[in-house]
Structure formats: structure tokens, C-alpha cells
């Protein structure tokens, strides 16, 4: 996946000012930066979710498998099936059971799986939730703890077998133990999926990401292998940020 010269606006606010970035397949890419630097906006541009907000606008190209997802004949709804997303706050559908939540993506797309039980089991296993919920699939998704709900949301995204999984601060509403489980999961999932994770927690980026990009004021300041960014940053602002001098 590759973003080319992405500009994004919220009404008059210019939130992203020309971001170009190649995302490596089947690796974890972390996006770090201070609040308001455009990191969430950037991932929301990668599955055309930015434009869902009234008054929001995007310019530029995002290439997925060589196709520009902002091309004229592209249906944004179809893009989102290939580029899944997990949000800051766990948001399982409250009217649905755990099982229905996992299948929600298929049902919303009008696809009927020949073997829904298999889809549910596979997705929940991938999200490391199967053992905890296999006997209570008929219970409501909201009956789970926050960390379990977030893993349910991950399972819900994985059930559609996306190419890319975007995670927008997926642990910011979770306690440290639940966070550790999600981080472990991100690491496991990277063998199958391309993952982009936004985080305000630099230790998290250092722990889970193969590549890290530092965003500041709507621009990409530095991008490279996580080890290099954290040990030998080339840019003074990156160094100031990761050493905690601002942010």
C-alpha cells in the first residue's frame, strides 16, 4: 500500500499537508506523533473513512494493489471491505450477539458464508478470543470486558479477510493487561496482514512495530525501521519527541 501526496481538510483546517509513504506488506507500521498531528486522519484516509465526516475532504492518491482507491470509478464501500479498521473505543454492535458481531461484516455486505460457524471460529481464534467466548457466542457483545470487546472488534474486521488492517489507537481505552494482549495479537497478525497502528504511546510503537513514522503538524517528519527511529533518529524533532522533550 502506498499513499502519495495526501492532503486532508476538516472544513477550513488543513490537517494533512502532502504525506507520501509506502507501507510494507505483512509488517506492522506504527504512526506516532503529538495530539493533532494528523496521524488518525492519515489512517482514515487509507480506507476512505475521512470523508464520512461532514465537511471533510481529501486530495491525493492511495494505491492498493496498484489501484488508486480515490480513482473516479472506485466505490468507497468496496475499499473498506479490503481495508479493515479498529477504532479507539471498542464499538461492538449492542443489538447483536458475539456471533452476530463477528458475522456483521458479511451480513452487511449481503454475503452469505457457506460455513458461518467456521468463519466465526477462525476470526475469533485469530483475535485470540475464541477460548474465552466459545461457550457464550449467543451472549451480547457488550457483556464482554473492554479488552475482550476490542478483540471482538478485531475479529469482526478479520472476518472479512481484509488485505490491510488499520488500528486507530486501539489500546487507548484499555488497561495495561488488555493492552499487552492486543499488542501480542498485533504481532501475531502481522504474519498474515499488513497492519498500520496509530499510537500515542511510544513504548507501544517500539514494542510492536517493524516500521515507525513520526508525524508532526500534518507532515511526515521521519519514517524508517523502528530500531533506527528510536535509537538513531535523523531529525532533531523526532529525537525531541521520542526523548519526551515535547508532545
Amino acid at each position, binding site marked *: 500500500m502506498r499513499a502519495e501526496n495526501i492532503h486532508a481538510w476538516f472544513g477550513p483546517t488543513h490537517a494533512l499537508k502532502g504525506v507520501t509513504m509506502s507501507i510494507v506488506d505483512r509488517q506492522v507500521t506504527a504512526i506516532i506523533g503529538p495530539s493533532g498531528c494528523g496521524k488518525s486522519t492519515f489512517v482514515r484516509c487509507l480506507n476512505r473513512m475521512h470523508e464520512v465526516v461532514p465537511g471533510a475532504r481529501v486530495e491525493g492518491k492511495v494505491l492498493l494493489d496498484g489501484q488508486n482507491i480515490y480513482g473516479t470509478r472506485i466505490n468507497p464501500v468496496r475499499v*473498506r471491505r479490503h481495508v479493515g479498521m479498529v477504532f479507539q473505543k471498542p*464499538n461492538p*454492535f449492542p*443489538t447483536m450477539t458475539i456471533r452476530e458481531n463477528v458475522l456483521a461484516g458479511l451480513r452487511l455486505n449481503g454475503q452469505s458464508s457457506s460455513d458461518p460457524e467456521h468463519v466465526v471460529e477462525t476470526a475469533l481464534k485469530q483475535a485470540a478470543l475464541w477460548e474465552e467466548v466459545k461457550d457464550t457466542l449467543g451472549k451480547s457483545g457488550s457483556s464482554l470486558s473492554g479488552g475482550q470487546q476490542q478483540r471482538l472488534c478485531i475479529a469482526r474486521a478479520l472476518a472479512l479477510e481484509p488485505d490491510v488492517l488499520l488500528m486507530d489507537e486501539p489500546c487507548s481505552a484499555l488497561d495495561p493487561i488488555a493492552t499487552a494482549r492486543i499488542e501480542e495479537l498485533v504481532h501475531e497478525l502481522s504474519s498474515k496482514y499488513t497492519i498500520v497502528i496509530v499510537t500515542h504511546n511510544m513504548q507501544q510503537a517500539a514494542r510492536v512495530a517493524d516500521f515507525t513514522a513520526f508525524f508532526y503538524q500534518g507532515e511526515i517528519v521521519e519514517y524508517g525501521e523502528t530500531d533506527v527511529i528510536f535509537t538513531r533518529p535523523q531529525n532533531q524533532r523526532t529525537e525531541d519527541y521520542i526523548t519526551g522533550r515535547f508532545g
Partner: protein
Amino acid sequence: MTSVSAEADTAALAMRASQPPVELVSGSNGGVERAFRAICLLAILLPLMLLVLLFGGALIEAIPRLSWDFLTSYPSRRAAAAGILPALVGSAGLMLLTAVMAIPVGLGAAIYLEEYAKPGKVTALIELNISNLAGVPSIIYGLLGLEVFVRVLNLGRSLIAGAATLALLLLPMVIMASREALRTVPRSLREACFALGADRWQTLRQVVLPMCMPGVLTGVILSLARAIGETAPLITIGALTYVAFLPDSIDSPFTALPIQIFNWVSRPQPEFHINAAAGIVVLLALMLMMNGAAIWLRTRLRRRIYW
């Protein structure tokens, strides 16, 4: 250095000691608090007492006439033999037809305004007008119904014309209640849905509507409970006051409970006033039942939504 700071500490302690202790004993505003509480209590007791008085008065007067026969008899020239069956059936039919017309249109309008309309001058104007319509006196709706449904659309003085008029009257309320219900569905759930590759319609149908249905239904029933007591618009469009048959189709002439009551009250004979009181008791009981049903339905449907 140490001696200086020790001196400062002693000075600070001395200052503390000379100050009065923190005020914890009840101050002087306890009386105001109590008075305000009493006023608020009075504000709720007053309307409640009036309602009890009204209902109780009607009930006492109505008791000799309240019987199964009263509910199942046709009106009669003899007060003791008169019943409210056609009015009861007419009111039930009206409510059913009104709901059938008001729910889809009201919910549709609410969905458009909440989900599709772009904020702007036109939308603001529409919203303003809907709130205005909610305040228009019901007799105006009656005149509108008379002209549009009875005359122009040539529906005659029929059940369907009455129901259409009442539906028009309820629309602003249904729209506002539905919008309120749509707004309670958090944005994060809609986004979750979009992110799964759902379009707007699928999001509405699978996630938003199931979640806001309790609110919509409660709003509809509460507005219907208001409509069942409406008299003016039905008189305007020409509901009959003396009907010795049951409405057998939607274009049949009809009467309704409030009209029957109005008719009996305006008779000179005191026996008919007893009938009117009995009719009022039945009408109030129906309204209480509808409000109760709204509460029951809301809690029941909410139980299916787990937060």
C-alpha cells in the same frame, strides 16, 4: 537555615491556631432549601390532584352506567340503553389507520433530516416549520383535512379521511420523537458499520433502526394517546354524532369516543350526562393503557439492547 525554617513553621502554626475552625455546622440557608422543596412538591401535587379530582368525579358519576352493556351497545334515544360500541370501534379504527399512515411518513422524514439532509438554510427552514406545525391548533388541521381529504381527494366523511387528518396532526410529533431516537445512536457505531464496508442504507437497517426502534415506538404511542382524545378536527371533517352501525370499511362514516362524549354532554337531559361521564372514564382508561403500553414496550425492547 534550619532555624529560620523552624521559625517559619511555628509562625504558620500560630496563624492556623488563631483562625476559627472550618465552618461545618448548618448555615442559614436551610430554610430557603426547605421552602424551595415545598414549592416544587406543590407544583407536582397541584396538577396531580386536579387529575385525581377530575377522574374521581367522573368515576363516581359514571359508576351506575359502567357495565359491559355500556361498552357493547349502540347509541339510543333512551340514555339507560345507550352504549359506545360504534364510538369505541371507530376510535380503534382511527388509531390503527392513523398509525399506519403516520409511522412510515414520520420515520421517513426523520431519517431524511437526520441522516441525509445536508445542514443548510433549506434544512433549517424545514426544521423550523416542523416545530411550528407541532404548535398549530388542531382545528386548523381539521379545516385542512376537510378541504384536502374530504373535498379535493373526495374521500368523503369517512374513517380514512379522519385518520389522514389525525395522521397529519401527529406527524410533527412523530418526526420529532423519531429524530430524538435516531440521535441516541452513537456516531462510533455508524463508523464501525461504514468501516465494515456497509453503505448508508445497510447501516440504517441493520444497526441504527434496531437500536432506535424503542424510542420511535414510544413516541408514536404517546402521540396516538393524544390523538385519541382529539375532537375538533374530527367534528370539522364531519364525523357523525349518532351512529347505529359499525364502520365496515375505511370509507365508511364513523364516530369516535370524544365525539360521542361531546354529543352526550350537550344534551339537556341529565341522564345523558351520566353517559358522558362513563364515556370519559372509558376514554381516560384507554389513554392510561396506551401510555402504559408505551412504557412496557420501551423497557421490553431496551432489554434487547445491551450497553
